């Protein structure tokens, strides 16, 4: 596999990741979101593996395997179990309507390309063209957290944001040092457990997982 071919494949992966990020923005059903998130993880894992293979940075394989286990299998499974347990399968409404969210998302992607243009020109890495996509994924994840009102979707948004960060690390510097990546992976796992506990508490307190309910906690003046 030549470097330029790898770059092409990597770009396709980046495109797919961006696509799934938009998919996450527009998907209304919670199980669909979960599937999309798993797909995004898979693309990320493939992209990391390709970069690792082409550049010879072998610890990226370990990252790739970690991504596969955690983000494609473990986390979706945990969330799936949670959804089953709490019986939340119904459609979820967004705060901003979906076309508007899409437009904002597109604006954010353009903004990311604009922002990373000078870096892309300076960089010599194979992955340089994907940095903009990585940044856009981070922004879209944040946007998803802003526009959704259900706690589980917010967590998925957060995890998508983390995917974007991971992708940015791979595309900007061929991945973070091994120790850091292991740490981050562990953090994600622990975060998932904590979220689970929070969901449970929010659900028992407010009898719903709608975070709008938490506005009641604000003190009145």
């Amino acid at each position: 596999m030549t470097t330029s071919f790898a770059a092409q494949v990597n770009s396709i992966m980046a495109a797919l990741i961006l696509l799934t990020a938009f998919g996450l923005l527009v998907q209304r059903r919670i199980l669909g979101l979960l599937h999309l998130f798993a797909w995004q993880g898979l693309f990320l894992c493939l992209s990391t593996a390709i970069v690792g293979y082409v550049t010879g940075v072998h610890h990226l394989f370990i990252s790739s395997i970690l991504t596969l286990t955690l983000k494609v299998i473990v986390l979706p499974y945990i969330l799936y179990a949670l959804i089953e347990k709490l019986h939340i399968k119904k459609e979820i409404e967004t705060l901003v309507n979906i076309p508007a969210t899409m437009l904002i998302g597109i604006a954010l992607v353009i903004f990311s390309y604009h922002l990373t243009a000078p870096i892309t020109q300076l960089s010599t890495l194979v992955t340089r063209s994907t940095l903009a996509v990585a940044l856009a994924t981070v922004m879209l994840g944040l946007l998803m957290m802003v526009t959704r009102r259900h706690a589980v979707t917010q967590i998925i948004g957060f995890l998508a944001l983390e995917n974007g960060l991971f992708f940015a690390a791979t595309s900007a510097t061929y991945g973070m040092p091994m120790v850091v990546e292991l740490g981050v992976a562990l953090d994600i796992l622990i975060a998932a457990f904590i979220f689970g506990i929070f969901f449970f508490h929010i659900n028992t307190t407010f009898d719903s997982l709608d975070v709008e309910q938490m506005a009641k906690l604000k003190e009145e003046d």
Partner: protein
Amino acid sequence: MAPFDIAIVSVFLMASPVILAPCCAKSRGLTIYLSFAVTAAASLAAVAAGILAVHYGTNTSAIVQMGLPDLPFHLRLDPLAGFFLCVIGLLSLFVSIYSIGYVKGFSPSRPIVRFVVFYALFIVGMLLVVLADDAFFFLVAWELMAASSYFLVMYEDEKAENRRSAYLYLVIAHVGAIAILLSFGVMAGLANGFESFQGYTFDSMRATTYPVGWATAAFLLSFFGFAAKAGVIPLHVWLPEAHPVAPSNISALMSGVMLKTSIYGIVRITFDFLKFFPWWWGGIVLVLGLISAVLGVLYALMQHDLKRLLAYHSVENIGIILIGLGLSMIFTSFQFPVLAALALIAALYHTLNHAMFKGLLFMGAGAVLHATHERNMEEMGGLIHRMPWTSVFFLVGCVSIAALPPFNGFVSEWLTFQAFLLSPALQRPILNLLIPLGAALLALTGALAAACFVKAFGVTFLGHWRGHQSIQRVHEVGWHMRTGMMLAAVTCFALGIFPTIVINWMDVLPERLVGGRIAASAGAYGWMWLTPYARERASYSGFNVFIGIMLVVFVVWLLLHARKKAVHRVPIWDCGFEKINARMQYTATSFSMPIRRIFGFFFHIREESQAVEPIRHPAYPEKLQYRLRVRDRFWNWLYKPIGEGAFFIARKIGNLQQGRIQVYLIYSLVTIIVLLVFLG
């Protein structure tokens, strides 16, 4: 032993009740006697250290390896510190003796260990403030003093009023402390660059020459901070709130010496660190001093709460001290070292005097409170028959604070007047206008203070008992309290009779600080005559005045008693009424009424009288209800707008907090984008 060692011993001894009192908490009597005996001994040591330090002009310093790593505490005893050590020690000696009796009078259910502990820490804080020789240690001591006095003001914390007053005190003290901290920051930064911390010692601040702009910033910040502690108008609002609610021995210490630590701070920073300053700094100090003096005494006149009245008088006296300091600063900047020395001596002498007579007056007020359980003067009267000793000591305090010879208040105010009158034509027209005006206002202050204390003494001790309870249960206080007051009264008298000796003793202060001295001319005609400048210009002999007064008293006594006829008391002439009763007396409110009319615009007065109509006819009301509320305008003018503005802004900012997660996330998103746009 060197003075410095005595001072250190004094600090340790003063701190020992912190450990001693909890150890013997089982026995209430033992705790009181032991703790206050120890603090009295420690105060005595502080006085000795102070007197010796000023006398020998010592300049000892030491480094204590405590505090933060690489930032050790520095201590230093120089004549200025020694002088204030002496002031603090002298009053806390008297108050400690007085406290034995006063604290025993607390109700048995009140825990006293914490009182004793904070009392000791409070004095330790004050001693360390003057001994500190670096900004860090100074602020630690300053906060120790502020925090422990806060707990002492809060001592009777079951009343909401006390908690509110103590909180107000704490807030203003801390606003001031922040300003002081910033001022030290400016000076330390200029002394040794903003990168290293080594400029925090006072030595390096002393050795630096500051650019005028930064020096002004440092001066204004520190002056603001110290003025907040000293209660200079308009930062005085905490004084009349906190002093009445604190236990009286604490009021005596707070008003008598704690306020003086800020005078120390101003002198230290202005004359010792900044050294060269433009004349208008002095102008600011002088003007604020004049405002505080005049308004302080006017507000005092309107009070009928004895301790609140005294608290306003502290504002007035701090004003008088600042007048002296301001003049000294003006003369220093125009290069008149001798006049600057005279004004500085006047200010510092008044500092010492005010500590003595205000301490005495608060102790007297405490004795009255102790005996009558009453702070309102309208409910007192005729106490001279029940409490002869207290009334004599209180009278000494009144005469001293009203600046009447032969007591000490007269000497220092007279010296301040001399500084005004001797001032030559200066090159600034505004000063030539301000200085005579200042002298006139100071004279007005003195006259009003005299009126105020005629009222305070007359309404409280003379006439007939107005209270609702029986006067029979009012008794003279115990000998501890009387001893404390007596010692303070004797000191007031001695400071008024022997000013030459005192000035000779403290002459080293102006010599070090402003480069001039006056002892040679002040004592040129022996200890009896005080001639601050030259005999032709002005001279005063407290001793001769005293002898003269004694002669007059003796002659009058002879005229009364030499006729071999016993003096007998008859009922007072009742002007045709059948029976004169206690309600027909002059009251505190009626006494101050003319002044309230003249200076009405300074006060926020709400006065209403209402005829309570009887059954018979509206033209013949049986009862008149009269309500009068006099408040100081500053609260509504200055503090209320600030408070309301703060709440308004807080509410507006509070709108940011919607309680919805999405909104908070939008804040993050927008922040990220904005940062990327502008910094990316």
